[in-house]
């Protein structure tokens, strides 16, 4: 298997929204190489005939009646928020400034 390059690792960490330090990039790239080499073993025994299994239970789309139940009040839902304002979550800017 191709080894994970430092740049590749950095871009995957960006996708996962984790800011890695230079030291972490060094440490993880060698560790992840070992792990990926080892897990690549799964390719040895599979073929096109085998149906992938995503879940232990053979169930699909569990429905329930659409009944209004109890839910959290805005106060309770916002109690653990890092920042809130006017009964809403306050978040950092999501659009670039013009």
């Amino acid at each position, binding site marked *: 298997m191709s080894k*994970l390059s430092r740049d590749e*690792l950095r871009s*995957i*960490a*960006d*996708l*996962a*929204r*984790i*800011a*890695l*330090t230079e030291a*972490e990039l060094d*440490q*993880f790239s060698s*560790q*992840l190489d*070992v*792990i*990926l080499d*080892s*897990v*690549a*073993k*799964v*390719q*040895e*025994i*599979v*073929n096109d005939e*085998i*149906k*992938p*299994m*995503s*879940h*232990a*239970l053979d*169930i699909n789309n*569990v429905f*329930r009646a659409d009944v209004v139940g109890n839910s*959290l009040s805005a106060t*309770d*839902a916002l*109690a*653990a*928020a*890092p*920042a809130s304002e006017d009964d809403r*979550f306050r*978040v*950092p*800017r*999501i659009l*670039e400034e013009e």
Partner: protein
Amino acid sequence: MTAVDLAAGIKKKEFSAVDVAKAHFDQIAAVDKKLNAFLFIDEDGAMAQAANVDKKLASGEFLGPLAGVPVAVKDIFTQKDIPTTCGSRILENWRPPYDSTVVSRMKNADMVLLGKVNMDEFAMGSSTETSAYGPTTNPWDTSRIPGGSSGGSSAAVAGFLAPLAVGTDTGGSIRQPAAVTGTVGVKPTYGGISRYGIVALASSLDQAGPFARTVLDAALLHQAIAGYDPLDSTSINQPIPDFVAAAKHKDIAGMKLGIVKEFAGEGYQAGVLNRFNEAVAILRNLGAEIVELSCPSFTYALAAYYLIQPSECSSNLARFDGMRYGLRVDDGDSSVEQVMAATRAAGFGPEVKRRIIIGTYALSSGYYDAYYGSAQKVRRLIADDFNAAFSQVDALISPTSPITAFKIGEKLNDPMAMYLNDICTIPVNLAGVGGMSVPIGLADEDNLPAGMQIMAPVMCDDRMYRVAGALESALVSSWGGLLLDKAPRL
């Protein structure tokens, strides 16, 4: 005392539920400095629950079989207004606004919830060393790990800080800690216990279950928390078997038990295998028929697991974005993406970051088929091997962990060595069948506990209790008491 003895004493008013809770808080105060099992001690809440049990008993109310019995709760279960950290900085000081189903069922059973116990960060680990709040130690030898990820639960029960505990098991996180601490730990059939209110690691593998010092105690707690829950769409809507009756049954004559050939060889400690072989001989003497069989795909289970589990966790842990609850690292001048990346960099430890990155990689286009797709096919082969095995035998047996408790720090920087601890337990989660660990003695090399894993088909968890109850009974009479009675005093 066992949970059964405690419940009986409380009902007969030999002592009160308040006395029992108090005695456990005294033990926590005396020894938890050495163990670091508890992350949060809810003395006020627990004493109020205990007083309420005594009041109900005084008024003649009929109470359930575990009324007044204390329990330690892994810090992955939400409990209303009680801190739930999942062993992570990112959830430090978070107090959930609701109870998980497991917690609410234990409250409804009039159990006394002592507090929250330590775990590997987001349940990723086999040693409880990845907790952001420091490692928990093993009551048998405090320089060693108590297993993981539910190491706070195993240490609390083995150290007599609590007669019972609940944990979760995604790849062995109940069974391996139970094995290395000389306790009983059960990973029920997937869907047997509600996952509602459990912080998700890998949703298709995670399952909650009990820790106890005896098989019967484990059965009682399992019975109290099991069963269909409409709040968990993957919870099985079928009647649950009678685990308590199975634990008391003690007769295994005529049962067919299979030894999986693949669970042996390199990496297995000789002392663990010695105890396992002796336990097999006991089961044979008790009238079980022992068959050796092969499950060839199990050799690939570890590889499949370390793709599926990180893939699911990379997706599940995306919710920790610093927006609605938990940590937020914000200099006031950054975009939302930068705040998320900085928050997750500061809030997650190295093992969590490693797994999120592996999962993100395995799911990324171009690699999906080779990694995640192949792993899902291996998962099918493993489930097929279990089905074939269970068409020949009633239950399967193996060592739980190939080795006894290792030294703290020994494997922390070698992820693959750490992952090998779960080699016998992982296939069970991938297939969704039941598995439990029961103590079988001390390994010759180090005098540390070893466990036998018993595996049973979906929704046949009662078979595990039947085998474990009979085995425990024979072993306890040969030892003249529980294995834990041999543990050094803390």
